[in-house]
Structure formats: C-alpha cells, structure tokens
C-alpha cells in the first residue's frame, strides 16, 4: 500500500516559496489545490458561492446623492422603462383580452390566433372594430351605423356584410382597440 505522504506534491511542503498553515472550508482548499495543480474545472468556482450570505439589502439602481465622484449626468433624465400595459391598456378595469379565431377581418389586419385587446368602456363610433354579440354569438366586425340602422362589415371578400335588423338580438360587447400578433 502506498503511503499518501510519500506521494509527491500531496503532503510535503513545496520547495522554494514560504508557506503558511490556514484553515479553509474543504471546497475552497480543494479549489486552491487544483488551481496549483492546473486541474481546475469550470464548476469549481462555485466553492466561493456556496457560502450563505450574512444578510441582504437592496441597493438603489441610481442615486444622485453620492458623496464623492461626479454625479451621473443621466440622473436628470431618468424615465421608467417602457411599459407595454401602458401602451395597450387605457382602462384596466374595463379591458379584456380575447383570442381571434375567424378570418373575416384579415383586411383590417386581424388574423386567427391574434390576441385582441377589448375595451368595454369605449363607446363604439362609426368605423371602429367591435366585438359584438349577434343572436347570442360573438363576432368581430367593423361598426357602421346607417341611418337608423346598422351594418357590420367584414373585411374579407368571402364574408358578407351583415345588416342588423331590429328583430335580431344585437349588442356591442366591447370595442377592439389593439391587436397583438406573435411572430
């Protein structure tokens, strides 16, 4: 059986440089050894991360009150990052998302699979696109008042316009204000 201490480079004091005895956590000690041997592996650095933090705190991202150094010239121009909710939603309490499944409005840029943003607080005006309920079924069409009546226009030649007669059950569920397409 081979004695460990007799193996070169394991137990003996390295020649040349002065040394000191230190207590190190084993993973860190192993790391030091492998560093010296030139057998360091990529994951070994984790030994240093494997120590529980003593406390935590938050650091403000940018703070202009630094006691020394030149204050950031960008401080005066700080803006909040772009918020897509702000872009897409005007009235959160009244806004709903629906998934389009019909191709009757492709001419208006609304394709099956798109997510339409529906704002129920918007009053429909001539020419806007509405999510409507017609005889109990949902439909997406362009809203066209005509005299005393109303026409729901499709924007795809293969779909006819729908004239809304008084006896049909019709209501606007909401106005479609935006549409989102995943590419």
């Amino acid at each position, binding site marked *: 059986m081979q004695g460990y201490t007799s193996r070169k480079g394991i137990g003996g004091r390295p020649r040349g440089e002065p040394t000191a005895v230190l207590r190190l956590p084993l993973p860190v000690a192993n790391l030091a050894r492998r560093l010296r041997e030139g057998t360091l592996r990529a994951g070994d650095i984790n030994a240093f991360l494997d120590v*529980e*933090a003593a*406390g*935590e705190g938050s650091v403000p991202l940018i703070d202009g009150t630094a006691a020394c150094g030149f204050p950031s010239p960008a401080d005066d121009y700080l803006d909040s990052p772009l918020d897509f909710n702000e872009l897409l939603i005007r*009235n*959160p*309490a*009244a806004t*709903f*998302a*629906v*998934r*389009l*499944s*019909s191709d009757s409005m492709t001419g208006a840029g609304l394709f099956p699979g798109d*997510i*339409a943003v529906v704002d*129920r*607080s918007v009053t429909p005006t001539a020419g806007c696109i509405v*999510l409507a*309920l017609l005889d*109990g079924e*949902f*439909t*997406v069409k362009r809203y066209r008042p005509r005299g005393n009546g109303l026409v729901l226009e499709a924007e795809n030649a293969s779909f006819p316009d729908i004239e809304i007669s008084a006896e049909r059950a019709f209501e606007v*569920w909401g106005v479609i204000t935006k549409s989102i397409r995943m590419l």
Partner: protein
Amino acid sequence: MAPPIALVDCNNFYASCERVFQPALRGKPVVVLSNNDGCVIARSNEAKALGIDMGEPWHICRKRVDTGGVIVRSSNYTLYGDLSARVMQILAGFTPDLEIYSIDEAFLGFAGFEDRLVPHARELRRTVLQWTGIPVSVGIAPTKTLAKVANRRAKKDPACAGVFVLQNEAAIDAELSAIELTDLWGVARRLAARLRDLGIANPLMLKRTDPRFLRERFNVVLERLVLELRGIPCMVLEDTPPQRKSIMVSRSFSRMLDTRHELKEAVATFAARAAEKLRSQKLAAGRMIVFLHTNRFRPQDAQYDGVQPVTLPVATADTGRLLAAAEHGLAALYRPGFRYKKAGVILLDLAAAEAVQRELFDAADSPASRARMRAVDALNRRFGRDTVCYAASGVRRAWKLRMGYLSPRYTTSWEELLRV
C-alpha cells in the same frame, strides 16, 4: 340624518360572472356549485324561480326539482376574483370612502352627494355594467343596516331599476313595516322567534323598541341594530381592511381517503398553499392547526373529528418548515380505520415576516430560505400554480377536487382566453 352610505351588491355574482363570457347562459337557470361540486352557492334568478335553494347539496336538489334545463358550473374563483377586483376598482372611482365588504359587496360613503344620490348611483350602476358586464344593485341609507334594507328592495323591486334610497323617516318606516325580521342584517330565525315572543313582529316595531331594554334582555349587538334602524350609525366605514388574523386552506376530497399516505399528501398540499398565501402578504406564522374529519352526512360510517394545534419553534413563512409542522400535526391526528372526507390547515399568530424575533435555539427564516421561497413563488406565478412544488404534496393527487363543470379562466390565463 347621518351622511348617506351606499351598499353596492353584485346581483347573483358568480352566476353573472359565468354569463359575461358565455352569453348563451343569459335568461337560463344557472347554478354554481361549491368546491368539489357539492352544494349550490349561487343561483341566477331563473334558478331561484325553479325553487333551487341556496346551500342545498346538488345531488339532493337534482332529485327534488326538475333540473333538466339548468346549467351547472363549478366555482371558478380565479375568474370571480378577477371580476370582483375590477368592480371594486370602478367603485373606488365613485367615492373616496370605499369599504370592500366581501367578494361581491362594498359600502361606499356618499357624503357630499346628498343632492344627487340617485343620478350618482345610476351612473355607478351603468358604469359597472358596461365595463365589466356585472349587474349591481345600490341601496342608500344613513346607516349600513338600513343600506342593506334599501339594497334588498333595489334588487327585488323591478320598479327601482337597481337603485333605492332610504333617506327620510317616512320612507324608512314604510320599508321596515313591509319586510320580515329575518330580512334584517344579523337577525337569524331563532332571534326573530324570540323577538316575536316579546310582541316585536316586524322591523318597524323593533325600531320603536327601547334599545336599552333590548341590551338588557339580549345584548349590545341588538341595541346597536336598533340604533342603526333609527338612522344612528354604529358601524363605521372601514376603508383599510384589518390585518388577517388567520389563513385557512381546506378542501373536501373527491372521494373518501383512508390511507395515511394520501392524507399526508393532501395536508402537505394545503400547507404549501397556505404558505404561499402567507408570503403574498409578507407574513410569518407562529402556530398551525391541522384538522381532518370524516363525512358527517354519513351517520352509518364511523365518525372522527380531529384538531391538532402545532406551535412552531419560531414564526416562519418557509414552506419546508410549515410542511414539517403539518406532518407532525397529522401524525398526532391520524387514526386508521376511518374514511376521511375533509382536511385543512390553518395558520395563526401571524406577524410581519420582517419583524420575526429569533429564538434561543431556532433562527428565523434565513436569507437563503427567503430567496428560495421568492424564487418558488415567482416561478409559480409566472408559469402557473405548482410549476415547482414540494414532493410531499404529491403529483397524482387523486383526492383532488371534483370540478366537472369548470369554465375557462378567461381573464387570467393566456391559454384560456375567450375565442371569437
């Protein structure tokens, strides 16, 4: 008269929520069943007209009335919660003093609107209906108790078109003489019977009874009720919700459980869910109660009803620690040979997670634990519930709720959007 208080109550709220995205349900009888599709917890007017009772177990109801045309839904609390938050947000635009009383009710201080109570309430009603599709009723009066009375009339009397005001003595008296004692807030059948024995036959007579006599004969609660009927507010608006005193997660099982293993899985699931709720409010719990019981409605079965409190060594919000406590509690409770119907976990002694004192031998949740919990919560928020969970909660969960008639989560899941 005291400044007016409005009670806004969503009509048949759960059934109305179901109708927003499923117009085919309009005009049809709709019932919503409790967790596990047990009892009727909401009915559309058409379902009420069929004689379906509130709280009635559905399997009994089906035998009693012809429910052929009735549309049944499992409770979709995700959807109801989202629509409720929208309604409350809209109500906040109609008053500086909003007290959210429940998922479908709120009290609004209308001081300053005295000269236009009805138009203001009509505008509120129109806005909530247009923006969310939820119909509401508004009752306005000088006190909460009378606002409740006014709301009842607003809801029942079609002539009111959803708004009813009780702001003068004569109108209040007329209304109180037209309703039953049990229509009053907080008067149950037993109390009504005792009042009738004293010759107090209706709410108007109750209003005219000496409140001091009622305090001596009954209690201060009834005295306050009478003062409220007289237009003297005894219950103020509470704008800031009181801090939660406990968090409970409990469920009935889809079938009876008898093995320790399955119960352990269920209790662990409830504890993990409670821990998540706890953290969402930045709280830590110092005590836990685990309970389980057999089916009380099956007297032919052996009955067992167990409650086990567990004191935590130090208040915690760490799911791992809470799971250990839950397991400990269940081990003390479990008796073989019974068939269990329901179990639950209650967290008590809640305190702000930041302020937890460390004990001599037990450290408060470590930064590593907190970071781990934050990561777990963030993952589950982003990718859906139970994306990451503790193995103790199990994966099969064969005991899970029956939700045979669940509608999609139209407003909270990209996968379940309404398709049009």
